[in-house]
């Protein structure tokens, strides 16, 4: 818990002002901790008189021998026989981490008849491909995939395991971390190694992106993290790169499932996986109906982009939920995000503010969205969007 040394505390209030959780108050010239303290420790560093400290009763899993764990792993997500792009992005990030630690970079490949993907993963940066090829792994099921990954980790003991923050990654990786009683950090935007002790420093946005937090996993292994698509950069595929395939035979128990996939339905409309797109054209309330949406669809088609939407547009039924960006939708970080008729409520902006370039088109020059925009256009989107489409068409035609 957070201990306040009443002798040392001078009641200056700096900790109170720095507490993001409103957990510290000043009573009779001395700091007092309330129930909402999350022990984040930010007050401890701000105290000039060192009156604050965090005491931990007993540390989780402090018996784990960290030296037994070596190597960086990437979970190579494979669906319908295709490795997802985020897996190559993670190999790019994992390569740096492995080189820093002077250890090997492994890719975990689970599926049925997926052996041929191993060479692609090696070309993408992996030194080793841990392959479990079994018909029970044909379709993704939480329990089987989770159990097999647990067995692989327990056998080979990697120090780091990275996975994409996709529908699959976000569902099975927490199961694995819970089972192995180790730490997992979701949606990291930055990963680095602390050289002295090989601690993986995992940085992620918190409080809807208002704060960045760096998290480590000091006493247990593996150190696990998920990363959203498009955050890390893949390496240039190099077919000259050499690597080995390590076969893994899961136990019969791990392959036994309680869950059956009766059917796998692909969305009819294309480009529904907006997290994987480089360019997104997003529409909000200002589109004023499905007709407005067809305008941004045309622009999207011209740019080879996908359509995204604010909650208002989804709730109005102009476009389906998988396209929703924001707090109750998806978080995206495309290269280019064009927001049309979106006011910029925080529920929306938390989902798109990490885009490389943001363009806002809105008739209200005071709309909040302009605070997030790299480029802003003030005016009627029904006039601007078609103009933009034609202009792009001309430029591309040249």
């Amino acid at each position, binding site marked *: *818990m957070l201990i306040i040394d009443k002798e040392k505390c001078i009641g200056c209030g700096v900790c109170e002002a720095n507490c993001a959780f409103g957990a510290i108050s000043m009573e009779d010239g001395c700091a007092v901790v309330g129930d909402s303290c999350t022990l984040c420790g930010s007050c401890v560093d701000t105290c000039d008189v060192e009156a604050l400290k965090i005491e931990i009763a007993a*540390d989780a899993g402090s018996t784990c021998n960290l030296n037994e764990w070596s190597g960086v792993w990437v979970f190579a997500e494979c669906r319908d026989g295709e490795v997802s792009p985020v897996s190559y992005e993670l190999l790019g990030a994992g390569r740096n981490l492995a080189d820093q630690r002077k250890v090997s970079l492994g890719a975990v490949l689970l599926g049925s008849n997926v052996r041929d993907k191993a060479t692609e993963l090696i070309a993408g940066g992996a030194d080793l491909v841990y392959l479990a090829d079994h018909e029970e792994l044909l379709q993704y099921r*939480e329990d089987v995939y989770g159990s097999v990954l647990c067995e692989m980790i327990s056998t080979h003991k990697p120090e780091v395991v990275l996975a994409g923050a996709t529908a699959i990654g976000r569902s099975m990786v927490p199961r694995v971390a819970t089972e192995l009683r180790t730490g997992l950090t979701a949606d990291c935007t930055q990963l680095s190694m602390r050289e002295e002790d090989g601690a993986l420093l995992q940085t992620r946005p918190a409080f809807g992106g208002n704060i960045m937090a760096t998290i*480590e996993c000091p006493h247990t292994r593996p150190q696990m993290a998920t990363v959203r698509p498009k955050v890390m950069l893949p390496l240039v595929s190099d077919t000259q790169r050499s690597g080995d395939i390590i076969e893994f035979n899961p136990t019969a128990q791990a392959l036994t499932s309680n*869950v*059956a996939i009766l059917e796998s*339905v692909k969305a009819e409309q294309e480009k529904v996986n907006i997290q994987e797109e480089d360019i997104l054209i997003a529409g909000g309330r200002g589109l004023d109906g499905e007709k407005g949406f067809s305008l941004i669809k045309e622009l999207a088609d011209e740019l080879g982009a996908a359509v995204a939407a604010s909650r208002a547009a989804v709730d109005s039924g102009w476009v389906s939920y998988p396209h929703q960006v924001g707090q109750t939708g998806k978080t995206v970080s495309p290269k280019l995000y064009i927001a049309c008729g979106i006011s910029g409520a*925080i529920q929306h902006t938390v989902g798109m503010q990490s885009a490389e370039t943001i363009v806002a088109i809105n008739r209200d020059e005071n709309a909040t969205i302009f605070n997030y925009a790299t480029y802003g*256009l003030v005016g009627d989107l029904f006039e601007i969007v078609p103009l933009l489409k034609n202009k792009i068409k001309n*430029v591309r035609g040249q």
Partner: protein
Amino acid sequence: MKIVVCIKQVPDAKDVRLDPETNTLAREGVESIMNPFDRHALEEAVRIKEEHGGEVVALSMGPPQAETVLREAISCGADRGVLVSDRGFAGADTWATSYTLGNAVQTLGEFDMVLCGKQAIDGDTAQVGPGLATQLRVPFVTCVQKIRTIEGKSLDLERMMDDGYDVVRLPIPCLLTVVKDINEPRTPSLKGKMKAKKAEITVLSAADIGAKPDCIGLAGSPTRVVNVFSPPPRGDRTVFTGSAEEQVDQLVEQLGKYI
């Protein structure tokens, strides 16, 4: 059918603002609300109960004031509310939270289903649902967008994937996390509000749920926050002027590399 719904009290996102002067979160007037995804989980539980009978228990882990969201849950159809609250839970990461909720659910006795929202809007991790299922040793499915049928001890549902959806069959007992597509939550009835007002919320401590001290709170958490900082500011902003056509011309010039 006994259903436990996990509910988190979270700060209302629209109120959360960074104070430009001090660079800390301005918390004056920040209201606490029921996590929006949990509202859908609760609604689904109440609908299942209405069709198949049984009991809906709303469960929350948090400070004493989290009692408010449990009363709200009762006003929306939950039969009772249980709050696990203990100073020892402070600093819990998703592992310690899953452990604590797991012990709490087990303390409540046998269950058929545990329903959770896909994720909480303050932490955004989506890890506690799968973590809790693992602690309880029951099968789970995340991001459920529709429950198709419940027959005996078997459940058919649709799970949202990145490229569409899967139709999944799993046995009861199990745990599901839901997305907001699953239903449209009701607003509390007057009768529900009356019931919520009078309801007694059970409060359980770490000792009550048999939680081991080295598995809860910061001590039980494998992860540690080592640094908290403000995100780097976005680069320069340009708002174009002129006619629509002039603005478009200026934009296209800037967007060269994307076109």
